[in-house]
């Protein structure tokens, strides 16, 4: 079906509505003004200097980065194992287990945050690095289970069955046959998990204690004052997300894009 001019107009208007605020933030981050102004009176990199010159921001950036890498790798390993069990396993109630892994994605984040807060307090991990890591893993795992689960489901099970008959153990089949064929999906899942952790703020506010991540510091800063440094940080976060999505796009391009990867064949 060919879209008419009206449809095209609505699409463009929607896109502008969605993208324009982001572009304004990016533009303001390069402003020379000492308060938030649009359009910027002049160009400068002073807010980037103020960000990288402030050890508290740099420390938050390091914390965020380490946390994102650690939690996404743990989520990738655990989520992939869970996806394999859910798709190929014979366990009764697999649907329920699947739904349980998806819950953090569907429930309001504030509910997950309160739940994590209470649970971590109960086991004495509230405000600890391990507790923060665990909560980020819980939030990232749905993306991994979703993407990797679809990839396993669309991989012909008979190929694994043949591997069994050829003498390969289950571990050999997973390592030598299944995983090499899942590489693009594993990479997509890992990047999604990385972004999910890097952008996370609500749950972190509840459970991080003294640990400062970039989004958490941004939130706390904004409560006190509106400082243009925020726009520089926001621009960095946007750049990271855009690059990550571009990477996923490149990885999955040969297979018809992320949507197709997630929906299956």
């Amino acid at each position, binding site marked *: 079906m060919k879209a008419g001019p009206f449809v095209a107009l609505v699409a463009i208007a929607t896109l502008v509505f969605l993208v324009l605020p982001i572009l304004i933030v990016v533009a303001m981050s390069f402003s020379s003004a000492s308060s938030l102004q649009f359009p910027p009176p002049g160009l400068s990199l002073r807010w980037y200097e103020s960000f990288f010159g402030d050890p508290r921001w740099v420390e938050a950036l390091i914390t965020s980065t380490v946390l994102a890498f650690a939690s996404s790798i743990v989520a990738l390993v655990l989520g992939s194992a869970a996806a394999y069990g859910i798709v190929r396993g014979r366990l009764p109630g697999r649907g329920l287990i699947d739904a349980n892994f998806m819950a953090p994605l569907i429930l309001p984040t504030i509910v997950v945050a309160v739940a994590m807060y209470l649970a971590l307090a109960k086991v004495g991990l509230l405000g600890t690095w391990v507790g923060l890591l665990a909560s980020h893993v819980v939030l990232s795992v749905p993306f991994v289970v979703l993407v990797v689960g679809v990839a396993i489901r669309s991989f012909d099970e008979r190929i694994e*069955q*043949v591997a*069994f*008959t*050829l*003498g*390969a153990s289950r571990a*050999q089949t997973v390592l030598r*046959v299944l995983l*090499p064929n899942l590489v693009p999906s594993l990479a997509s899942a890992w990047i999604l998990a990385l972004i999910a952790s890097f952008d996370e703020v609500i749950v972190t506010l509840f459970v991080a204690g003294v640990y400062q991540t970039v989004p958490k510091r941004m939130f706390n800063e904004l409560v006190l004052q509106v400082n243009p440094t925020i726009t520089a940080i926001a621009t960095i976060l946007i750049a990271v997300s855009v690059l990550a999505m571009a990477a996923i796009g490149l990885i999955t391009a040969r297979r018809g894009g992320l949507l197709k990867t997630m929906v299956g064949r």
Partner: protein
Amino acid sequence: MGAIEFDGVAKRYGPVHAVRDLTMRVPEGEFLTILGPSGSGKTTILSLVAGLVPPTGGRILIAGRDVTNLEPQQRRIGLVFQSYALFPHLDVFRNVAFPLAVRGRPRSEIADKVAAALARVRLDGFARRKPQQLSGGQQQRVALARAFVFEPDILLLDEPLGALDRKLREEVQVELKALQRDLGITTLLVTHDQEEALSLSDRIIVLDHGAMQQVGTPDEVYRRPANRFVAGFLGLANLLEGRVEAGRGLRLPTGELVACATQGLAEGSPATAVVRPERVRLLPETAGEGIAARVRQDVYLGHLRRWHLDSDAGPELIAAAADGVGQAAIGDRVRVAWAPEDVWLLPEEARGAAA
């Protein structure tokens, strides 16, 4: 190398009997085909032998070893699926090397055996290709080489020719048969294609609704079908119902007598005569023998010509002859006849599975 024994093997999925009480022995080196329509349970039998699904009853023995509770890895079987199920990320060499590699064989032995197996399926020079770069026929040969390179006890083939076009299929049939005879390996093939079954097999099992209808050599199941299902599934068959006249033949309701041996069937008992179309001769209307009929349809098949006839004896009759042998046009009145030894009589109780 070894025989396969089925001892009361059964598989149920809930209330559905996929395989019922299968007991038979496949001797060492035999090429046995399991033939049946889709849903007859033939693929289930293959999966049971491969260990991909557990049976709900009975035992399976391969080379004298009870494998009923063994994992697929321990059964020493080579399996080829219709989809070939090649490893898409590995080239031809590493696909074929896979069963040897997972067994931790030394590199030099793997190289020798894979080279020999690829030569055996005429794929030398293709070792570094990926499966996606091969034609269907080549992929099929890679799957075969991978299935026999580690010298399994038996070979299992699940419609391995189903995805090939007709001409290629006939070539591969000849090759497959030669390969199997060379290797001397007990082979179980599953198919719904009766021509494939007839041309490849030492023996055929005809399966319907999970139950074995007949087992026998190709000419046994074709010429002397055990029941109407087998007669109808293996090619076209003329089926004429009537009552036995002991020592003379079968009396049709319309009064004609189909002369044939009555093999001890009781006088007056109902029975069905089976006559293959290629055994039916067309005679001029004036001939003094046979059943009167009128040509309704004339089907030209190249190597064969087939006539569909409305007969005075009731049901439609089909006659077939090599191209150029017979002559009849639509609407012609003819008489049809056959030799008494070309008639196979089914007693009444063999009708059951016809539905």
